[in-house]
């Protein structure tokens, strides 16, 4: 670099460049992401009067306990639904990601676009369409009934199955893309080397391909499980009374009951559970890698 000015001012100005570049975004992220999380923690320690809605700081840690004892069932339901939906998505997504990465050829981009097609339609609309498709006189059930696979009083809407199916559908692209990226990056010569060393196809798969795409699988897990865990649209549209998820509870606590202390405590618990996954990923795979999987 040609640098004519070696005076102190110029050097100082040069040193300030990274900070100046980062400043606006950093202020935004601190002020509207980190500070709100802290405010949320503080709020969960306040006591709010149900009459006036006014909140005062009382260092009342009991909110966490009372919210958990009231809503641990919904919390477990969310964990279960998100877990099952993520497992389904990992199983569904791996073969297609594998196929596109290894056999996609020149049409790779086309197939990736096909995977992303659902994202061009609003999340809420997609869920509403499933509500129609799965309804009692919808295409799916009418067809199944006509070929006598299910009895006439069989229904899906309102059941846990419908919610899990909705979650699995809506988040599938989030699962497929990171796995694809990880598979795509595998150096093909490693596979040839494995074969040259007389490894069978299955051994090559389990000892070479699978270990190399662990980061992608982990990213896929994270990017699918966390949004599914906090989701309430699928449950509200496709589910019923018996399968309320924690997202629904948080939404109602904030927007209907206006209980900000209780809602904050519940959100904080949700955040802590998600943080476990986030920190494990950061530790094992490195937080900077997430950009490669988006």
């Amino acid at each position, binding site marked *: 670099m040609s640098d004519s000015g070696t005076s102190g001012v110029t050097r100082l100005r040069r040193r300030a460049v990274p900070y100046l570049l*980062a400043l606006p975004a950093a202020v935004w*992220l601190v002020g509207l992401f980190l500070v709100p999380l802290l405010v*949320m923690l503080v709020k969960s320690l306040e006591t709010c009067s149900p009459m006036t809605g006014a909140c005062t700081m009382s260092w009342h840690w009991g909110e966490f306990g009372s919210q958990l004892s009231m809503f641990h069932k919904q919390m477990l339901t969310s964990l279960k639904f998100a877990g099952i939906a993520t497992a389904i998505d990992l199983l569904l997504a791996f*073969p297609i990601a594998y196929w596109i990465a290894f056999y996609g050829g020149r049409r790779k981009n086309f197939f990736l676009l096909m995977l992303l097609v*659902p994202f061009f339609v609003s999340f809420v609309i997609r869920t*509403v369409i*499933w509500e*129609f498709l799965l309804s009692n006189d919808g295409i799916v059930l009418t067809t199944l009934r006509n070929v006598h696979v299910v009895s006439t009083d069989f229904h899906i809407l309102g059941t846990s199955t419908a919610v899990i199916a909705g979650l699995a559908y809506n988040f599938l692209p989030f699962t497929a893309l990171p796995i694809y990226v990880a598979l795509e990056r595998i150096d093909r010569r490693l596979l040839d080397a494995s074969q040259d060393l007389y490894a069978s196809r299955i051994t090559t798969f389990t000892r070479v391909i699978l270990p190399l795409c662990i980061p992608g699988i982990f990213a896929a897990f994270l990017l699918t499980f966390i949004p599914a865990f906090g989701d309430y649209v699928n449950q509200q549209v496709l589910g019923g009374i018996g399968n309320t998820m924690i997202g629904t509870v948080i*939404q109602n606590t904030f927007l209907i009951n206006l209980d900000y202390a209780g809602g904050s405590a519940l959100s904080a618990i949700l955040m802590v559970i998600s943080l476990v996954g986030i920190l494990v990923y950061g530790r094992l795979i490195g937080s900077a890698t997430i950009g490669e999987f988006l």
Partner: protein
Amino acid sequence: MTDQIATTPLRVARPRRRFWLPLYSWLLIGYLVLPIGAMVLFSFNRVLTGLPQVSFQWNGFTTQWYQQWSQVPGLTAAFWLSLRLALVAALISTVLGTMLALSLVRYSPREFRGKSFVNQTLFMNIAAPEIVMGASLLGLFATLNVARGFTTLLLTHVAFSIAYVAVTVRARLSGFDRTLEEAAGDLGSSPFTTFRLVTLPLIMPGVLAGGLMAFALSLDDFVASNFVSGSTLPFPVWVYGATRVGIPPQVFVLGTVIFSLGLACAALSVLLSRRSAN
């Protein structure tokens, strides 16, 4: 690296493999596309009852809802609001996110103290549950007595888009050839001119990708928006509210329009990338 290393020819796929894997993949693609096809199809569906609501009973073809696309006042307002919001949010987060990405890629932790803190924050921002972000921002706005509306929506949307733009641009920047900038500097170009004429054109594909991502994220956001929108309803929040009372067919019309435009943009970028690859 002149010798061609034989890669695929060693592994000749057996017919069995060539059959089941593609079949499965096409079925899965069909499953992903099926509901979208249903939306497009039923946006052309006639409504027989007096109350215009979507139903999944085929009543005959009509373009009535396309002609009357703006006849539902709340919906049209929500649609324009979402477009404006997405445009402004994408613009702000693209500029801020690109600047942040530059500072992260270009400077070592010694030159930019706090780099790892920024990295951690970006990752946490992307991975954090959106419902927590929405709820915590609602708490913040309530504490500060900020009225909910377009401003709170914009603040929120930029807050969750910056990180996506930054990591997307960062991923594209990592293979950047710095010697071009040094050459520009040696030829007497000022840092700003170098950025404008050399750096920016080179990183433009990444910046555009990040910007489009931010636009799409904002346009489709429901969870966080639902917390901070107040009575200013963006498109997805309006549709969600309508699920309880019945959805006017215009929702499918607007959904189809957004879908077609998005697909057209994506197809264009696929074609362009194929051309530049050849």
